[in-house]
């Protein structure tokens, strides 16, 4: 069941890669312009997105529990979790930067996990929603994801620069988990097909 105004309902498939519009009655196996495979909707969109979402959800726990980096000063190590690093920034008077890291490393990943979860539920149970608003939500989720890598890049710089005999910064196991969460949620957003939301709407 597809909404009447949709290209698919009227016999057209849009090439995912180059945007070329192809008539479905011709049954071309691939796009005449760029030769990529034609799919009306992203293949196995919901299954793939669900799998990626669950993996990132499980990795999100160690990413927040374990230290993301350890500061060794004159023999004593001080492990830092993601939240600990933010609190330290705010405590030392760097409120704007602390808030920036708070948004990029905590608010963005957690709202992304919830948001993709909601999108999946909505598409799966065919909720009747304001599809435009939900598409905008999808667009925001897809856009902000990469900014969470900030923390990982910052650690690579700190680990490189602060490497003196007495003072040293070492990356912790949470860094691997966190980087995986960011990448997996980026893939999850990429695999979700927002057109499914529109297909399910009965009154369009």
């Amino acid at each position, binding site marked *: 069941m*597809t909404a009447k*105004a*949709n*290209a*698919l309902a*009227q016999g*057209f498939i*849009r090439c*995912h*890669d*180059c*945007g*070329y*519009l*192809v*008539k479905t009655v011709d049954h071309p196996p691939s796009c005449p*312009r*760029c030769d990529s495979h034609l799919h009306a909707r992203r293949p196995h969109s919901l299954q793939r997105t669900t799998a990626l979402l669950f993996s990132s959800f499980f990795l999100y726990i160690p990413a927040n529990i374990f230290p993301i980096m350890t500061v060794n000063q004159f023999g004593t190590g001080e492990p830092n979790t993601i939240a600990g690093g933010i609190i330290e920034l705010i405590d*030392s008077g*760097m409120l704007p*930067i602390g808030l*920036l890291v708070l948004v*990029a490393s905590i608010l963005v990943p957690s709202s992304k996990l919830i948001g993709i979860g909601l999108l999946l539920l909505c598409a799966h149970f065919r909720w009747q929603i304001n*599809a*435009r608003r939900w*598409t905008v939500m*999808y*667009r925001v989720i897809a856009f902000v994801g*990469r900014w969470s*890598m*900030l*923390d*990982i*890049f*910052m*650690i*690579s*710089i*700190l*680990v*490189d*620069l*602060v*490497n*003196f005999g*007495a*003072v040293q910064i*070492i*990356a912790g196991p949470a*860094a*691997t988990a966190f*980087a995986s969460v960011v*990448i997996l949620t*980026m893939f999850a957003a*990429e695999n979700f097909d*927002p*057109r499914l*939301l*529109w*297909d399910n709407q009965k009154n369009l």
Partner: protein
Amino acid sequence: MNSTNYDACPECDLLLRSAQPKIGEKAHCPRCGLLLSRPRKQSVERTFALSIAGFILVFPANLLPMVGITILGNVNTGILLSGVVALFNEGMVAVAIVVFLASILFPLVHISLSLLISGHLYFNRHNRFLVGWMHWMHHLDEWVMLEVYMLGIIVACVKLMALAPLKFGWGLYAFIALIIITTMLTSGLDTGLFWQRIEQLTKENNHDS
């Protein structure tokens, strides 16, 4: 219905009459509001020029020192690659690979592809790899994370300022210039126009042979 007169919105699949907005105007999807196209003046020429500039800037941005720090009289300077190496030496192999790809390899490949494609279009040369290059560039778009890396530098510097004096090198300035160039490049690249030009070149080439 002729399919070339129509377009479909990539995010809500609304069938639309092909919009040909004028240069400087924008076409939005009436149903979901997605920005469909925003033609730019001389997109091919502009992309070609920016790609050359970006390709040149990649080298100082990667090779010159970016940030230096002095602790107890010892100086440590970092470049893009040294962060990757430091992570690698600590055994954080996966993270090192991710940082390497997102901040060094993908930006380099992306700018090279855009240079190749816009160069071919600029000189009206056909190449059977043009389509493949377009696909690669499209897929890499999201994974070039220079702006995010820049934020990482800023946060790292704020943290380090409390610890020791910092010194900024030419590598950092080249890196900032590279970010400006790549941002202008991706925002000015008219994908629709590029695909049309490639299709045209392919047709002409098939006609000749």
